[in-house]
């Protein structure tokens, strides 16, 4: 297996772990953290191709990942604020109970 | 550490010659490893001794400011006091609460100390004496510094003590509030030097303006304001007075460190002083010209000597401020960070951009450049200061 394939396999497994975690847990914060893990796995993918693949400009992969990290940080901040707002309403952060808008 | 140029004086090259004498005969990969190990050992020894005598110097200076002699019973002028303190810390009973989270309780001081120590790797101590010359050295320093906050949380949480937890959250609020002005005050330095490498930043501060004033960053308008903001923020980042609410003995015993005793407490204490030394070292590098001498005539003092002198001067300022200023409350210090320092740091960044763009102005326009630059930062400073202290009574000083 070439190093590139190893890196891509690593990022795929990390993505799958993040996905399984986000789907399995009912705590809002853990779902958010699973999401962050998936974003990180995608970033790993970009860096793997930046490192090993043919690049037209040397900086593209790194710039993409920088923006992705910034957006992930913004999303984490807003998501955690949402969790606090959810807690204020229902006094716990279990997602299966957040069904007020249902039906 | 790279090879020395042959034009440097003997004192300048002496440490590198000594190191090459010891490891010169080893084959290449082992030689690099041996050099690195020697560097690490030297750094730990030097900063360990500095930590020890800094605690003594602090107690003596605080004592003299408060009109008392400070420790003077252990050894001549109290010089053995740090070692006595060390023995005390090592032989104290290590109490760990039974309900505490044992792994985290043990891990917190270790993580804090290791992260504080690795920040020493990018500071240029002398002309050819950077332990690791990273292309993004400044970012490495602040990244390692910000990762130490996790260990403060671990300390507060693992103690299983609600007051320790509240104190840890307060300490974290202080640390993250002051990270922003700290980083923002460093951005103009990077802008002016054009590089994130610490040795590159020191290289960019070479030469003398008008033959007399060294071109250190602190002698430019944005550098002076930036250094002031950096200094205040580094006081807060290392939990020093007047921002030492997290560990104020008269307020809340020891805050997030209440449940720590003996050697673990000594590790936290050491980590705080190492953080202080590292931030001062970084301040010297970024603003005070690093290892550069202020006068061309004084260049016979080797570069590491100048660095040490400047570092000791900054640490003396830290101690002086501790002796002089009263403590700030948590809401006062977070208000200072968010409402005062962050806007000023942003304005400073704009002013540094103006300074860089107007570098070509010559002659009498230089005066205009200085005037505009100083006005850009002084006017918001005065306006913000007045606006934020509206409603507070004017100070009256009554002397005893």
């Amino acid at each position, binding site marked *: 297996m*070439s*190093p590139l*394939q*190893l*890196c*891509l*396999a*690593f990022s795929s*497994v*990390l*993505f799958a*772990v*993040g*996905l*399984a*975690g986000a*789907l*399995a*847990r*009912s705590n809002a*914060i*853990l779902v*958010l*953290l*699973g999401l*962050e*893990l998936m974003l*990180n796995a995608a970033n790993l993918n970009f*860096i793997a191709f930046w490192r*090993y693949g043919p690049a037209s400009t*040397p*900086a593209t992969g*790194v*710039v993409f990942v*920088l*923006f992705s*990290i*910034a*957006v*992930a940080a*913004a999303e*984490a*901040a807003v998501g*955690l*604020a949402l*969790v606090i707002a959810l*807690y204020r309403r229902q*006094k*716990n952060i279990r997602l299966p109970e957040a069904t007020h808008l249902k039906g | 550490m790279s090879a020395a140029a042959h034009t440097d004086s003997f004192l300048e090259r002496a440490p590198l010659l000594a190191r090459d004498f010891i490891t010169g005969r080893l084959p290449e990969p082992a030689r690099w490893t041996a050099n690195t190990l020697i560097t690490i050992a030297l750094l730990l020894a030097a900063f360990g001794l500095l930590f020890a005598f800094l605690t003594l110097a602090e107690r003596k200076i605080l004592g003299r400011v408060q009109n008392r002699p400070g420790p003077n019973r252990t050894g001549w002028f109290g010089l053995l006091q740090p070692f006595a303190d060390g023995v005390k810390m090592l032989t104290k009973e290590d109490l760990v609460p039974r309900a505490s989270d044992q792994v*985290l309780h043990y891990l917190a001081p270790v993580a804090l100390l290791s992260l504080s120590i690795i920040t020493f790797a990018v500071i240029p101590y002398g002309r050819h004496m950077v332990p690791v010359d990273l*292309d993004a050295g400044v970012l*490495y320093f602040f*990244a390692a510094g*910000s990762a130490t906050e*996790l260990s403060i949380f671990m300390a507060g*949480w693992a103690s299983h003590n609600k007051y320790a*937890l509240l104190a840890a*959250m307060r300490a*974290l609020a202080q640390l*993250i509030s002051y990270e922003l002005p700290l980083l923002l005050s460093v951005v103009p330095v990077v802008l002016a030097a054009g590089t994130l490498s610490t040795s590159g930043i020191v290289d960019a501060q070479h030469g003398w303006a008008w033959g007399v004033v060294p071109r250190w960053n602190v002698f430019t308008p944005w550098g002076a304001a930036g250094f002031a903001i950096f200094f205040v923020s580094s006081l807060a980042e290392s939990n020093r007075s007047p921002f030492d609410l997290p560990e104020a003995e008269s307020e809340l015993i020891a805050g997030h460190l209440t449940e720590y005793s003996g050697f673990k407490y000594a590790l936290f204490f050491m980590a705080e002083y190492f953080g202080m030394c590292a931030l001062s070292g970084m301040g010297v590098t970024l603003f005070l010209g690093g290892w550069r001498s202020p006068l061309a005539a004084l260049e016979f003092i080797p570069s590491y000597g100048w660095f040490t002198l400047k570092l000791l001067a900054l640490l003396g300022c830290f101690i002086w401020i501790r002796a002089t200023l009263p403590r700030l409350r948590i809401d006062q210090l977070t208000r200072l960070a968010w409402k005062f320092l962050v806007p000023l740091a942003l304005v400073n960044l704009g002013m540094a951009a103006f300074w860089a763009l107007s570098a070509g102005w010559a002659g009498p326009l230089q005066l205009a450049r200085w005037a505009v630059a100083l006005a850009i930062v002084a006017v918001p400073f005065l306006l913000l200061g007045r606006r934020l202290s509206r409603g507070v009574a004017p100070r009256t000083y009554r002397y005893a």
Partner: protein
Amino acid sequence: MNAVLAVIALVTVASAAVALSRRNLLHSILILAGSWAGVAVFYFWAGSQFLAFAQVLVYLGAISMAALFAVLLTRHSRDDVAGASSHQRAVYAILTGIAVAAVLLAAVARTPLTVRPSAPPPLSVRELGYTLMGSHAAALLVVGVLLTVALIGAVVLAAGDPPDPKEGEP
């Protein structure tokens, strides 16, 4: 080379898996911080130092702090335990994860990828800066606005509504 990569991958994936399966929420976040540190080590190994330090600064220094504060602010009667999730859902989630991993790994294994040998692309921070401020300046400004909006939005969401004025007051 591959050995280092294998160690990094193992540590990162293992800490991620352990973190997402623990019942104690704070332990989860702290172990996940280790996983993010593993990703930073991967960036460093791949040759991009700036990105590694940015990852440490943002994830370990900021996002983990925000998550820890959110956990501490949303604790209900001292149970920071993640609660009993249904086993059935956990099994389905793990099966989904395995299926996705299988699809991705199959795609990776079967695609003929050209690998550029030797050293990582030489990217100095200066070049990165020129690229960001030059050809990607618009995106940089948009990200700046996005972060400001996210900051204000998070503050507004978390601060909630001011309390109603009491009735009966003149």
